[in-house]
């Protein structure tokens, strides 16, 4: 296949990748590789065995969950490892470990430890206090012993495991902002204090069990939320790694060196191999070639460029490898401009207030005033101070938002998990909330609704045998049109000695047996209606009709979105004729053709100002800015890195139909979250009056707390069912 061409783009043995290596004290080097596409036991075996076979490699471990391969070796060149993984058949990039990575890991581990400690304490303390509840005739000394034991476990456990809440509450206080953790921390600390006082003064009730259970249940919600965010960050990190692509630059001495794209300066001479993306804007220096512009403009047919032509970053070289002189640094390239637009869009999106935060803003003042009123009420009614305080604290404890803290993360984790199984990768927790609110869907055309590559359309009307003859030649080329022919014919033999003339076509054989495949002028064809021609000797040329076509599920997708009451629109950089034809075929009435990336962003801005909430589905570099401005965005798995980065969700695989599934799940998740809020509110409405009036015993507190949490989680699990919504 094209491995010979490709090898130019792989880092060679002399390139400097040592900055990705970390040297341990014992002298061994560790090197992390981000591997794409490893999903099964077989992949682990193949990759680990393959890499371990390199002499000098000491230890190889592939983490299937994160796709990271850790290689510990004695001075093995990183290139060798990358090359080996690529030879085995997986995409590999050196992994630039960010500093925040370890902080995340530490946070996750700490949450898990807290969860374990509070879980243990909850079970143990519940066992003790249950004995007290069911043994009213227990001797006073025994009860004191039980309280003492419960306190001895519950106090240190809650103080340790409650740290995530205490810290966040403290940060909130310092920043003078109210967050949910302030009432939580207060409830835990007051419950502990009250219980110590009660146990010391031979009282009948302690709330040790309530304190640890509160911490335990809330930590479950907190950990689920962390997992969700961690996965989202992981996705962003992975894409960032892919972004830091390497380029080959000629040094002053004439050697080639591999550097990160961001180090390229104007005036540098770069070598871009066939199949590689041009990293920065530049001018071609050595000879003409062909470029694939589809990711930038949406045009699928390759464009011919000559020496001296300016080329845009983001386009892909599909002809001969070229040398180019950079005219701009990466920061000034189109890609970087779009990245900036993208960042701006994401900032405007970060003002989105998540449902849970909206609930918290409502919740905190209500709880505090209720507790305060309970205190005042009891004092006015003439109760002693200790009783009034006890009841006020009971209100705080019983309203503590166990169910509320679980309501959102439980639903979101079940929903993202379900979508993950169906091939939708959700990159941020609130993406589902935003997806549930949309009223308009905007599609890009090329590569999103369509396959994004030419497909042979007139295979039926060709003379017999022609397709196979043309395919014998086409299989030798990487040109998109040739590949379309090869794909239509399937696997088969390759003609010997195929010569390729860039911008014209392919040729094989000599004299009267010469066969040509290529442009109209290459095959001396007079008609211009076909995109590719085949000619044998002096026989008349035969035309192939090659066009982009809709993905198989596009029409059904548009129909089902419309049937859900959503407006559907199409934006494309392609010309009006093509766009109109596609729009008719797929059933979209509203479309815009021939528009630039900036105009796409403007269209999104206009819709936003009209109050529409837009889902943008796009794949190209030209969609990224628009996607960042949309209320929520989805990129197909074939999309460019930059739009995958801009999007909130990425589809795996080739089908578009998961878009509908994602929308349905998002709607359903929102409904479940609201139901969960209602359940939590109903529980509070019954529990608060009881607590305020002093009827709440620790037994009732424990039962309602656990009961409502269980109810909320079970409600969330309804979403996990195998049935399609």
């Amino acid at each position, binding site marked *: 296949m094209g491995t010979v061409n490709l090898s130019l783009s792989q880092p060679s043995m002399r390139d400097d990748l040592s900055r990705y290596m970390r040297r341990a004290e014992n002298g061994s080097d560790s090197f992390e590789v981000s591997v794409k596409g490893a999903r099964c036991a077989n992949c*682990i075996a193949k990759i680990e065995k393959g890499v371990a076979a390199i002499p000098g490699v000491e230890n190889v471990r592939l983490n*299937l969950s994160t796709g990271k391969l850790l290689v510990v070796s004695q001075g093995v060149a990183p290139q060798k490892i990358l090359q080996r993984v690529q030879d085995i058949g997986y995409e590999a990039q050196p992994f630039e470990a960010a500093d925040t990575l370890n902080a995340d890991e530490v946070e996750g581990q700490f949450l898990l430890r807290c969860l374990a400690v509070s879980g243990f304490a909850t079970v143990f303390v519940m066992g003790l206090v249950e004995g007290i509840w069911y043994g009213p005739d227990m001797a006073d000394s025994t009860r004191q012993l039980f309280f003492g034991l419960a306190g001895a476990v519950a106090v240190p456990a809650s103080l340790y495991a409650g740290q995530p809440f205490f810290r966040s509450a403290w940060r909130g206080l310092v920043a003078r902002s109210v967050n949910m953790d302030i009432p939580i921390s207060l409830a835990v600390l007051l419950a502990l204090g009250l219980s110590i006082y009660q146990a010391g003064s031979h009282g009948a009730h302690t709330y040790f069990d309530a304190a640890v259970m509160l911490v335990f249940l809330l930590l479950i919600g907190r950990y689920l939320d962390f997992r969700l965010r961690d996965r989202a960050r992981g996705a962003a990190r992975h894409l960032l790694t892919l972004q830091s692509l390497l380029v080959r630059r000629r040094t002053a001495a004439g050697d080639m060196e591999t550097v990160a794209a961001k180090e390229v300066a104007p005036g540098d001479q770069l070598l871009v191999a066939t199949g590689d993306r041009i990293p920065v804007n530049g001018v071609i220096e050595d000879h003409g070639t062909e470029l694939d512009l589809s990711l930038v403009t949406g045009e699928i047919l390759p464009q011919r460029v000559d020496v001296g032509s300016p080329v845009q970053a983001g386009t892909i070289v599909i002809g001969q490898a070229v040398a180019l002189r950079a005219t701009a640094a990466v920061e000034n390239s189109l890609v970087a401009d779009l990245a900036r637009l993208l960042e701006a869009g994401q900032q405007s999106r970060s003002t989105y207030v998540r449902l849970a935060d909206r609930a918290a803003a409502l919740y905190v003042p209500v709880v505090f005033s209720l507790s305060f009123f309970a205190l005042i009420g009891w004092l006015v009614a003439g109760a002693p101070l200790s009783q009034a305080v006890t009841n006020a604290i009971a209100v705080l404890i019983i309203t503590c938002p166990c169910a509320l803290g679980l309501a959102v993360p439980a639903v979101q984790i079940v929903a993202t998990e379900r979508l993950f199984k169906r091939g939708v990768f959700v990159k941020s927790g609130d993406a589902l909330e935003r997806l549930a609110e949309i009223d308009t869907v905007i599609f890009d055309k090329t590569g999103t609704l369509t396959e994004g590559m030419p497909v042979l359309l007139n295979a039926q009307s060709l003379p017999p045998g022609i397709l196979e003859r043309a395919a014998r030649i086409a299989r030798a080329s990487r040109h998109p049109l040739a590949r379309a022919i090869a794909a239509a014919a399937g696997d088969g033999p390759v003609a010997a000695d195929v010569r390729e003339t860039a911008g014209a076509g392919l040729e094989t054989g000599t004299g009267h047996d010469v066969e040509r495949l290529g442009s109209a002028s290459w095959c001396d064809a007079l008609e211009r209606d076909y995109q590719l021609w085949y000619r044998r000797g002096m026989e008349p040329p035969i035309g192939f009709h090659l066009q982009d076509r809709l993905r198989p599920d596009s029409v059904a997708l548009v129909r089902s979105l419309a049937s859900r009451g959503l407006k559907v629109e199409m934006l494309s950089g392609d010309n009006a004729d093509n766009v109109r034809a596609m729009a008719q075929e797929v059933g979209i009435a509203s479309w815009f053709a021939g528009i630039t990336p900036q105009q796409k962003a403007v269209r999104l801005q206009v819709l936003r100002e009209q109050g529409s909430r837009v889902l943008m589905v796009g794949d190209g570099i030209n969609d990224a800015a628009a996607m960042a401005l949309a209320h929520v965005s989805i990129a197909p798995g074939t999309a460019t890195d930059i739009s995958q980065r801009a999007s909130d969700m990425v589809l795996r695989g080739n089908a578009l139909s998961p878009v509908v599934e994602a929308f349905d799940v998002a709607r359903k998740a929102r409904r479940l979250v609201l139901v969960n809020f209602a359940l939590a509110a109903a529980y509070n409405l019954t529990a608060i009056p009881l607590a305020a009036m002093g009827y709440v015993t620790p037994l009732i507190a424990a039962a309602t707390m656990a009961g409502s949490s269980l109810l909320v989680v079970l409600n969330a699990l309804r979403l996990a069912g195998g049935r399609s919504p």
Partner: protein
Amino acid sequence: MNGMALIIASALLVGLGALALLLWALRSKQYEDLDGAAARILLDDD
């Protein structure tokens, strides 16, 4: 009374033991790659 002290003490010990086990498993990174652990059981070591 003696029996109760025994029961409570042993319950505490068993519970703490389980907790220690879990913390050890966490520390030795057994929860780092759950997908990988599920897949590795299918591999033959040779």
